């Protein structure tokens, strides 16, 4: 392991889903992830932010090895993901943990907690039941679950949402991962529990020096739980920057409208309408030419944005944005 080299690198990553009619006639492709480049360092926490259908969940599944990339590659710790087979692939799966959105759905309802936490260990060849039990108890302590004995023999539906999500996190930690991918880990939980779970993830990430990639649609929670943000729109990353930089100085018009749509809680919110771009995210089957946000963009430059895809600009130090507005010819 060489320190400083990224843990995970995605280059020119595409994940398309073919649409077929009658089971064989190809009628098109849903371009869920459409040319994404990024690198995640060891021990950093990043957030992928975007609306539903922007490809963030497909990206997560591609990184988890659940979808095969159509084009491009994912390199994890120097190994290319698509070349991994058999044992090497199992090893990779053990090194990437997964925390899902719906904690209840993520736990098999017919297994008690002990059984379902045993599963990953059994699959990864931990034969000794006592060793398994010991590892399970250790992670349950790590996710701050109390009354472990009682919880181990319960079924998922007997636990509260917060407890369920802790079990999901515990399961993701069981195999000693180097990275955790959390897909909207708190969006189904109550407001009072959300912060607790996010804090827990953040603390575990720091203690274990994990790479944490969490996917969310909620910009307001991001500041305290991520180091960097990637903003996705229609299958692409349109802007990326460290968290404070991005939230305080958004550069891409899409990020700007996302931030304009949410405001800190205030009684005056009820008095004014928010600035919302019209229209809806484009179909991933047939994305618009040029910049994908141009049909909704209030600052779109006719003849440029609707024709040519914007390259990556760096309007500020360490802050990247794919938007023609940063092109010097147009001024910024």
């Amino acid at each position, binding site marked *: 392991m060489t320190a400083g080299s990224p843990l995970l690198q995605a280059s020119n990553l595409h994940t398309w889903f073919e649409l077929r009619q009658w089971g064989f006639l190809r009628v098109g492709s849903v371009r869920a992830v459409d040319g994404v480049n990024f690198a995640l360092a060891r021990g950093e926490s990043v957030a992928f932010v975007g609306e539903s259908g922007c490809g963030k969940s497909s990206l997560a599944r591609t990184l988890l090895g659940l979808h095969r990339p159509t084009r491009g590659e994912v390199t994890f710790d120097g190994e290319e993901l698509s070349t991994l087979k058999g044992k090497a692939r199992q090893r990779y799966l053990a090194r990437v943990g997964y925390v899902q959105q719906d904690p209840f759905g993520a736990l098999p309802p017919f297994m008690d907690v002990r059984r379902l936490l045993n599963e990953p260990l059994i699959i990864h060849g931990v034969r000794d039941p006592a060793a398994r039990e010991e590892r399970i108890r250790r992670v349950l302590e790590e996710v701050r679950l109390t009354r472990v004995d009682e919880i181990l023999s319960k079924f998922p539906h007997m636990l509260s*949402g917060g407890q369920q999500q802790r079990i999901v996190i515990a399961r993701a930690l069981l195999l000693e991962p180097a990275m955790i991918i959390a897909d909207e880990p708190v969006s189904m939980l109550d*407001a009072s529990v959300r912060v607790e779970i996010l804090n827990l993830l953040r603390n575990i990430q720091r203690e274990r020096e994990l790479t944490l990639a969490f996917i969310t649609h909620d910009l307001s929670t991001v500041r*305290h739980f991520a180091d960097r943000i990637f903003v996705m729109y229609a299958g692409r990353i349109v802007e990326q920057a460290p968290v404070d930089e991005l939230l305080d100085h958004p550069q891409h018009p899409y990020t700007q409208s996302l931030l304009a749509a949410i405001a800190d*809680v*205030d009684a005056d919110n009820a008095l004014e309408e*928010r600035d919302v771009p019209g229209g809806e995210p484009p179909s991933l089957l047939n994305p618009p030419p040029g910049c994908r946000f141009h049909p909704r963009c209030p600052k779109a430059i006719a003849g440029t944005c609707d024709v040519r895809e914007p390259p990556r600009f760096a309007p500020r130090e360490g802050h990247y944005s794919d938007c023609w507005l940063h092109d010097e010819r147009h001024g910024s």
Partner: protein
Amino acid sequence: MTDATETLLRVEDLRLHYQTRRGVARAVDGVSFDLRRNEALVILGESGCGKSSLAKALMRVLPRNVQHFGGHVMLGETDIMALNDERFRREIQWNRIALVMQAAMNALNPVVRVGEQVAEPLRVHRGWSKERALERVAETFRKVGVSTDFIQRYPFELSGGMRQRVVLAMALVTEPDLVILDEPTSALDVLTQAAIMNVLKRIKRDEGTSFILITHDVATSSELADRVALMYAGQIVEFSDARQFFHDPAHPYSKMLMDSVPRLHQPEAPGHIPGEPPDLINPPAGCRFADRCPSRFERCDRDPDAFSLDERRRVRCWLHEGEDA
């Protein structure tokens, strides 16, 4: 035009208990509040606090396992709890109170054109002709920002945001006095959510409709609220003007909840409320929040009254006992 300060709805000691296998669940357990005309009241609470049951109780769409349903609800001059089911259905439901249920946008009939579905309350409750009803539908669609071309479309042809607007149109088409919205935006994206809230603000301003917005999301609630009722374990623990609630909450639970809201432009990390909300089947004696409350003291073992701090503010907490006005 009616007087803006006229009380539209007065709810007193409303109770809705369910019979379950494990015992009686007190989903709504003695709830009182009032709502003025052209006012938006937000009923805020975590999942399982009884806020959706409150909506069902007001609209009288009750499940079969109701064990107890009682209290006083005055809508204008009408005591709607005194009406029998038939009269309630004919005179109140949809005509004077409309309800947008949680996830209603996914409950649209997939094989009926949306225009006809929106026209349904007019045809059923008012007996209007199809042409007249569709005309009103077109008008309502314009108000909620749906192209009138969509009248002839089927639900699957619309995006989530559009379907939610259609559902909203269905509630508004009869021009009811009161619209109850149960989590109208929780399944939607940030931008769509903001757009829907814009529509609601516009309708409230232009049409003078009164709203009860039920949500678990403090940020969403601030987008419409004139007043806020915070529910916990079947009871309203704080009932305040929005400004007071968001900036100076009184109940310890309100304070902790407001503190747990992440703020975009705030440097310090949000807090959280430890513990779990109590079981509605066997709520603890005394204050129901006591187990999670940092300010708990001996009095909390007894059930607190709702103390009125000032004319428009009631808090169910012993800490405010002396301040009773």
